[in-house]
């Protein structure tokens, strides 16, 4: 299957970006160097093209009920201009995907939402919404708008200053997870104070055709998916397909450390199973760790206890540019999950000493 291309593929190529396949998309992984891009976001400001993220639009008299019953968070609590992080779970409470749900201004006086599934999941999530709407006989229109929007993330301590200069409307007053329509160079964009780096910043949903105008309006370091990964990992944010996977590494939100997205006082697919998990407690959980020995932990490496028995698996790992140390995430039984616990990560057959640390690894917003 040919890769999908973001609207600015050509522009990024001219800028000297390297590309990688991610979720079926051909995305810029690196513009200059991951280290430089990472530092720009931690110390200043950088912009990411994340147009591979999906956009599903849901509107109608039953839109709130449908959203509430298919995501784990409390959608009914969202007012226009609010957003929330949520998981999409199956009947067993296993995460299918994680997402951000935005409440857009009402359309035709009906509640309206836009949610952002991970790259490559948009068609499956669109189908899931349609199937459940039909099964539950709800009145809602569901539209996969992934090909209608580019998505840019402006991130870093100086993001608000730069956005204040570039955006035609006030934007600095948006609180965390608040969103509204703004105009940038005359283009109407949905702007949210969200991100995936641990820094302050905004994410913009931009009409596909106007992507270049909006992207070019921000004069700052362009950043690729490489820096996005090191930044999110330092911030302790999980990545779908790496830190959980519906098929290859099925996990509940409680195991994945995102139990805060589960509102058991709402009705949703997976709720009853998750209530049981919460009562009984999890057997394993996702922990952060740092390698004390030299080496770089990578997805799939074994984690052993100090006696050499395999007790878990690394789900994400990197050399942290901020800390200058190898860090990672992985699932281990609760008895090994306490910060300070000594473990081993097996790198090419060699056990490397590792220590469990609290996540996030850095201070985040």
């Amino acid at each position: 299957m040919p890769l999908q291309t973001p609207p600015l593929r050509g522009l990024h190529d001219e800028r000297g970006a390297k590309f990688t396949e991610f979720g079926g998309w051909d995305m810029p992984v690196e513009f200059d160097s991951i280290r430089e891009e990472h530092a720009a976001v931690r110390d200043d400001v950088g912009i990411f093209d994340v147009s591979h993220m999906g956009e599903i639009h849901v509107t109608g008299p039953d839109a709130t009920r449908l959203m509430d019953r298919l995501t784990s968070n409390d959608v009914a609590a969202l007012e226009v201009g609010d957003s929330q992080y949520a998981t999409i779970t199956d009947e067993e409470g296993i995460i299918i995907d994680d997402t951000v749900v935005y409440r857009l201004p009402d359309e035709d006086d009906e509640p309206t939402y836009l949610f952002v599934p991970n790259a490559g999941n948009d068609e499956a999530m669109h189908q899931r919404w349609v199937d459940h709407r039909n099964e539950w006989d709800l009145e809602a229109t569901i539209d996969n708008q992934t090909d209608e929007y580019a998505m840019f993330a402006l991130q870093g301590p100086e993001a608000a200053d730069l956005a204040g200069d570039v955006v035609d409307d006030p934007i600095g007053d948006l609180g965390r997870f608040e969103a509204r329509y703004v105009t940038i160079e005359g283009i109407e964009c949905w702007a949210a104070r969200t991100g995936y780096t641990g820094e302050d910043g905004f994410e913009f949903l931009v009409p596909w055709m106007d992507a270049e105008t909006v992207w070019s309006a921000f004069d700052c370091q362009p950043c690729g998916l490489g820096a996005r990964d090191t930044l999110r990992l330092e911030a302790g944010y999980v990545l779908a397909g790496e830190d959980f996977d519906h098929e290859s590494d099925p996990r509940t939100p409680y195991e994945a450390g995102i139990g805060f997205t589960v509102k058991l006082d709402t009705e949703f697919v997976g709720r009853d199973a998750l209530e049981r998990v919460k009562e009984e407690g999890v057997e394993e959980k996702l922990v952060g760790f740092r390698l004390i020995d030299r080496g770089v932990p990578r997805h799939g490496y074994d984690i052993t206890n100090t006696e050499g028995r395999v007790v878990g698996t690394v789900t994400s790992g990197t050399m942290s540019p901020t800390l200058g140390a190898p860090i990672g995430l992985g699932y281990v039984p609760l008895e090994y999950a306490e910060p300070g616990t000594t473990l081993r990560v097996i790198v090419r057959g060699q056990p490397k000493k590792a220590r469990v640390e609290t996540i996030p690894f850095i201070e985040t917003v």
Partner: protein
Amino acid sequence: MSFDIPADRRYLESHEWTHALESTGDGVVRIGITDFAQDELGDVVFVELPEEGETITAGEQFGVIESIKAVSDLYAPVDGEVVAVNETLFDSPELVNDDPFGEGWMLEVETDTDLESDDLELLSAEEYEEQIA
């Protein structure tokens, strides 16, 4: 984009370089990776190298290099015994990015191989340039 390919060295298709060290007398060569290779890898964060006294074999793996985004094996251009290891790289692996043909060198190896010989599997600078074009 153009890359440095010094003419005074021989190359492997797998992007290692080697050249004879005049300063250390006959038979000692230096080994590293090319400018092209470091650019492909991106930010180098880790190298795993043999220790002094170990032997390496032409065409076989002698170490591992890791960037933030990739793990890559290192292959030996010649047979020989390791006589020096650039231990600076353990704390400053970014030298491989900054100066791949200079301070980013990896090993010095005592070898019987004559790098001038035409019988070797090694590429000339011209041949290597064609390969990466």
